[in-house]
């Protein structure tokens, strides 16, 4: 089967324009900017000081925030993509066009991913620009890395959202699944890991623990960011459990790419049936 890029671009263009027009992109970008600035100036309040302290601590706080926010935003953005068209009845007309199901799926994904990427880059970029006077080259590099990994995290959860959208029989179930997935990856997964580690007294978990963390894109995101920051990695104590060999940026980046590709692959396979 041939893939016509033109058809993918038409679908992607419509999705992206829809999100621009209903001001979704603007709203999400503003949320990111606001949160980033608030965290930069007040993030150290727990340590008893207010005002910009260090970029490393700011990024560490932002990472914690993004782990909650971006999966949620991505799942909400994407869960409706296919099941919504099916439930409203517009899917039939779309598929009667000279358009394959794979092209439709990829177009939807890319259009939504573009909206999410623009929101993330503009939102955090704006905050970065406001802070730029206080950042040196090294800090800027870390901040750029944080933005890039945020985009990857969003794309991974968007991929999961499209998978849900293809697999679900109706929108209600799709939204339920999306919420369940968010709870699982953001709240439950780490608790289970920690619980297992504590229950076994750390006897067995030691070696497989970092590998298990790769099964959760939010953990991969955390490790990606935290590990590049010397000050913070010791703070989190992650270096003690995460082997340096696995922590190479490109390896973790590859894991994220798999997290983007695999759910989309499942969606494409199921959508063809």
């Amino acid at each position, binding site marked *: *089967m*041939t893939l016509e890029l033109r*058809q993918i671009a*038409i*679908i992607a263009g*419509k999705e992206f324009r*829809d999100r621009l*027009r*209903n001001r979704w992109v603007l709203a999400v970008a503003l949320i990111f900017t606001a949160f980033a600035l608030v965290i930069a100036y007040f993030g150290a309040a727990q340590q008893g000081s207010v005002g910009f302290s260090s970029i490393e601590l700011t990024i560490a706080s932002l990472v914690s925030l993004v782990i909650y926010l971006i999966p949620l935003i991505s799942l909400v953005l994407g869960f409706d993509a296919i099941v919504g068209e099916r439930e*409203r*009845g*517009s899917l*039939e*007309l*779309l*598929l*009667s*066009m*000279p*358009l*394959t199901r794979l092209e439709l799926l990829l177009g939807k994904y890319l259009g939504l991913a573009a909206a999410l990427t623009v929101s993330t880059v503009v939102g955090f970029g704006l905050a970065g620009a406001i802070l730029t006077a206080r950042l040196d080259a090294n800090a800027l590099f870390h901040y750029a890395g944080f933005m890039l990994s945020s985009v990857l995290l969003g794309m991974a959860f968007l991929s999961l959202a499209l998978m849900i959208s293809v697999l679900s029989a109706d929108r209600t179930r799709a939204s339920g699944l999306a919420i369940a997935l968010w709870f699982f990856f953001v709240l439950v997964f780490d608790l289970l890991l920690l619980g297992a580690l504590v229950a076994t007294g750390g006897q067995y978990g030691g070696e497989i623990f970092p590998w298990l963390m790769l099964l959760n894109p939010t953990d991969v995101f955390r490790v990606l960011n935290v590990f590049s920051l010397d000050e913070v990695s010791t703070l989190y104590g992650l270096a003690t459990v995460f082997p340096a060999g696995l922590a190479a940026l490109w390896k973790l980046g590859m894991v994220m790419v798999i997290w983007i590709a695999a759910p989309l692959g499942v969606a494409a396979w199921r959508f063809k049936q």
Partner: protein
Amino acid sequence: MSSAAIVHARQVVRRFGAVCAVDGVDLEVRRGELFGLIGHNGAGKSTLFKMMLGLLAPSAGEIRIDGVATIDTGFREVRRRIGYLPENVVLYDNLSGLETLRFFAALKGADKAECAPLLERVGLDAAGKRRVRDYSKGMRQRLGFAQALLGRPHLLFLDEPTNGLDPEAIREFYAILGELKAQGVTIILSSHILAEIQQRVDRLAVMANGRIQALGSVQALREQVDLPLWFEVRVAPADFEAVRAALGHLAVSAIEARDDHIAVQCRRESKMAVIEALAALDGKVLDLSVREPSLEDVFFVGRP
């Protein structure tokens, strides 16, 4: 396989679990034909449509359009020349009429310059910049129809196309179909209202329970089922017996006295003999009307 046919369906079956929605359909639609598919909701029309468009794969059998099987990858090219108006068309509320057409024109590879004239053709030129959200049911249907005409298709599938249209719009709609037919476009339309399409189609297929129960021109179907027709003969009550006597020797199947007329039922071949016998009654007949059999009576009420 005759080259005059554009649609070939051979022994097409479609099952949904235990339900057999389409059950062994054989059908050929000729190039340039205005073809009607008639049947109750649930008769299998929409399922057959979806299979002809390649939206559903047949469970058994095969459909070819322009010689290409609907499940072939090459069917994409055929689709560029097909227009489709789904039953209860759903469009995007957040787009305007013109944007809707531009979006589908892009997908179909049609010239965007077609969009504005098409809106005008379906009477939506004044509403082209308004969002579809604010359109009435009839306007959405018109927009859906304009969408089906993008890319100058040579084959049109219209599923219950006049749903939600007022009588004036229905007339305009069939006028456009007439123009398209004159240009050589093949049109397949479905309806559950036989009366609406029977005067307008070249041939029709009657579907029930997933099968084609009858196929042909309206005239041929009438003759095929050979339904009796009814005369309503208005005479003074005093002359009722005279009418009975005059028709007594003819092959009429029923003579019933009603309030102010006599109802006479006979077969088509006796029609002229009955009229002559009544004319011979020399002024006793005050009025006469003939009720032709309705195909609806045959296919939808019960078999004769």
